[in-house]
């Protein structure tokens, strides 16, 4: 009788939960978005990157650590998540069917250098893309919740979800290309919101996990510290109380970061693969390329082609000066966040995140198209909550990113899994279509692909610059108000 009752309660509970999910305003859109991703994602991939996931995943499957084979030249978090999904997936699906070696692609590889001869199967694509799709969905849901909290407007919240989840650039990056930028983006969005919610320990942990996924969240440090300090100064009565709170909140943030760092580092130290793990910094030794959607795109102008070789031979100079410029501007963002952030922390964090990433893009030696998705959630929050103009910037950035990706090699090579594992397409026609595109004559440059890069990067960089000029906040106002706050701070020994 008892068992029957508990079974009934469980069924009732599951039924209620199911109804809760199905009645949620974004449920069917989320379902549709996920189906769309699997439809696009199973038979597509960018073999150049995905080969690394395949080889790393397979090495982990057979018992190695993320870095033991030295393929994986990124911070470890994506390696762990990938390894977990491959290891569990491999218990159910046959690892012998994960990829095929397609020797016909050798000729295309020798021409372009951007196609691998190892083409992963729908089985492997399903395994490694699933965590990316989950991260896509989580970001969409967080955006929905956050915008709803700030605006109390369900329509705006739903639009925020749709703008993210059905953004073509996001779909291309996660579902078609198959790269993990979305996971670092998820951590970064969580940090910003958790700091806004004053959850400093979890905020610190998410920040460090973000850095240990793709390094760029490290640039958020001035903004985050600025806002944390600002919020304390605003809410405390006397100077002693303020400093007590500063120490406490910053300590929680640092503890969170240390917790995440130690969590990640333990297995690397245990398995003694720390030396291979530092391969992520080897770029300094082997030379850095410049270009992409950064001001260095001028190298796509025929007269400035020499910049590429110059950059390879002067990596240290480029990294040194771009870091100095970057840190200077980020310090300004941090200072403004500190002085004015307490007035509206949500606004400071949202605009501050957009400004931080804009500075990163404008000072980085190379900005690949997929880096642009780091900024998309923050652009959506700003456009839904504070300033609708940013929707246009979002459109410019999305399509310039897409055009840049198209300019690299066209889209046909992305369909190699479809050609290798079905009869819908054949490998030879993909090779010839890609070769034709590769050799297509340009108007300004020798090749069309360089012309497309030039155009897409020009628009992309303009879009990024526009991010730094919000319509409803003028720089004059920021300077005036900052001076006012500094005076107040000097007079009173703190904000009141």
């Amino acid at each position: 009788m008892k068992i029957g009752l508990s079974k009934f309660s469980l069924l009732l509970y599951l039924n209620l939960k199911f109804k809760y999910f199905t009645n949620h305003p974004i449920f069917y859109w989320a379902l549709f978005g996920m189906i769309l991703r699997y439809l696009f994602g199973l038979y597509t991939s960018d073999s150049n990157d995905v080969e690394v996931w395949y080889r790393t995943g397979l090495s982990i499957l057979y018992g190695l650590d993320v870095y033991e084979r030295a393929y994986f030249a990124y911070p470890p978090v994506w390696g762990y998540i990938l390894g977990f999904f491959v290891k569990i997936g491999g218990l159910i699906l046959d690892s012998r069917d994960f990829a095929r070696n397609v020797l016909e692609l050798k000729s295309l590889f020798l021409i372009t250098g951007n196609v691998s001869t190892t083409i992963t199967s729908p089985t492997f694509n399903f395994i490694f893309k699933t965590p990316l799709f989950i991260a896509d969905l989580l970001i969409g849901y967080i955006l929905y919740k956050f915008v709803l909290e700030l605006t109390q407007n369900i329509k705006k919240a739903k639009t925020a979800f749709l703008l993210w989840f059905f953004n073509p650039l996001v779909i291309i990056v996660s579902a078609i290309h198959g790269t993990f930028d979305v996971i670092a983006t998820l951590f970064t969005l969580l940090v910003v919101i958790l700091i806004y919610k004053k959850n400093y320990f979890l905020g610190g942990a998410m920040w460090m996990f973000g850095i240990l996924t793709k390094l760029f969240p490290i640039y958020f440090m001035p903004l985050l510290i600025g806002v944390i300090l600002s919020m304390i100064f605003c809410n405390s009565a006397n100077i002693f109380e303020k400093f007590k709170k500063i120490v406490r909140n910053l300590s929680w943030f640092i503890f969170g970061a240390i917790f995440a760092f130690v969590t990640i580092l333990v297995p690397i130290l245990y398995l003694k693969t720390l030396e291979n793990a530092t391969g992520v910094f080897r770029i300094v030794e082997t030379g850095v390329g410049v270009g992409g959607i950064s001001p260095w795109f001028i190298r796509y102008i025929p007269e400035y082609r020499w910049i590429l070789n110059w950059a390879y031979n002067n990596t240290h100079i480029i990294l040194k000066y771009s870091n100095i410029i970057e840190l200077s501007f980020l310090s300004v963002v941090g200072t403004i966040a500190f002085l004015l952030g307490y007035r509206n922390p949500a606004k400071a964090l949202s605009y501050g995140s957009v400004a931080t990433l804009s500075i990163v893009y404008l000072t980085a030696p190379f900005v690949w198209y997929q880096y642009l998705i780091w900024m998309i959630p923050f652009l959506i929050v700003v456009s839904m909550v504070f300033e609708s103009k940013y929707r246009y910037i979002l459109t410019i950035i999305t399509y310039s990113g897409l055009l840049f990706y198209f300019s690299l090699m066209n889209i046909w090579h992305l369909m190699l899994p479809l050609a290798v594992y079905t009869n819908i397409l054949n490998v030879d026609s993909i090779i010839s279509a890609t070769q034709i595109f590769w050799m297509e004559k340009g108007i300004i440059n020798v090749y069309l692909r360089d012309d497309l890069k030039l155009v897409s990067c020009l628009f992309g960089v303009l879009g990024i610059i526009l991010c730094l000029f919000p319509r409803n906040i003028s720089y004059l106002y920021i300077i005036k108000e900052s001076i006012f706050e500094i005076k107040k701070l000097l007079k009173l020994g703190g904000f009141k």
Partner: protein
Amino acid sequence: MRNLNTYQKIAIIMIMIIILSEITISFPFFIKNPDFKILNYNGSAIEYKISAGSYPLELQIVFLSAEREPIIRTVYIYYDPEYQRAGVPKKQARGLVDHIPSELKIRKYEGEIHIVNATALVDLLLDIHSANQSILVITTGAFPDTVYTLDKNLIKPWIEAGGILFWIGDTFAYYSAEKSKKELNWNDPRHPKDEGRVKFFGTKDIIIKLQRGTIASVESEYSKALHLLYPYISRGINITKLKSMNGKILGKIGEKSTSIALLPLGNGSIIIFGGEMHKRDEWIIAKDIAQIITSGILDYKNINIIGFKKYSLDRNEELKDIFLIEKDHQSQAIIIFIFQSNDEPVFFKILE
């Protein structure tokens, strides 16, 4: 969990996923590893059992006969970013420095591994007495001018004293690289050029030059048995000359040349890779080098492949098999080299 907001819940779930991932990867207590056991050996037959473990297993077993115990050699990898390279991009040369030690460690190679620059290379090559316990890998397609010029050759005496040299990159011994940020000047009269090969082998015809990107696809006995993958022959070794010098074809076979060749020289030998290296070829080359070194074919005397077998096992599958040893080899030591033959192999075992 009930008192937490959505963002806290998501953050905690992310932390749990990461910790679970780490445990799964670093301490996989629920995963059964593959295994190979000899059940019976009576001089004329070996009976053995293979178990696949938790995942499907592609396994290859090579049976070799030989005369003496192998030496555990120290592996030296030459890499000096301040010196010029020929036919090897900087990133790939650097990649070999990471990948060769990794692949050797995965194969549980017991010898020491050191990275040497152009200066340390001089000391290594002058230490003739240790040559027969050393392997040198040249990753740059050109010897540095500290050890090799028109008038100086510290390499040949070292090999003749028992050293083993792996060569990767442009034509063997053609260029002499100098310490410079500038690209190597191909026409510099100070390069030994074809004379370099004459000094080593008495003939320059040991290499057949073909168009860049030319690949060989026919398997040789060794490439098949050891699962060696390097395919390029644009600077491949002339098979006729190789045979006349009692060398071995290790790589794949083209019309007249091979992608990897083993040339004996005095008490040592030179293993030459066929001439070019593109993006990610360092992965293949590192695996091939590690496979050649750990199989023992460089160190045993009169080593011969007497057979090899391939297996494809489903997860948790076990099987027993017997290998019959021909009469000619029954008096010799038998070495069994067992390795996974799929992409990214991890299971290796060598038995004598």
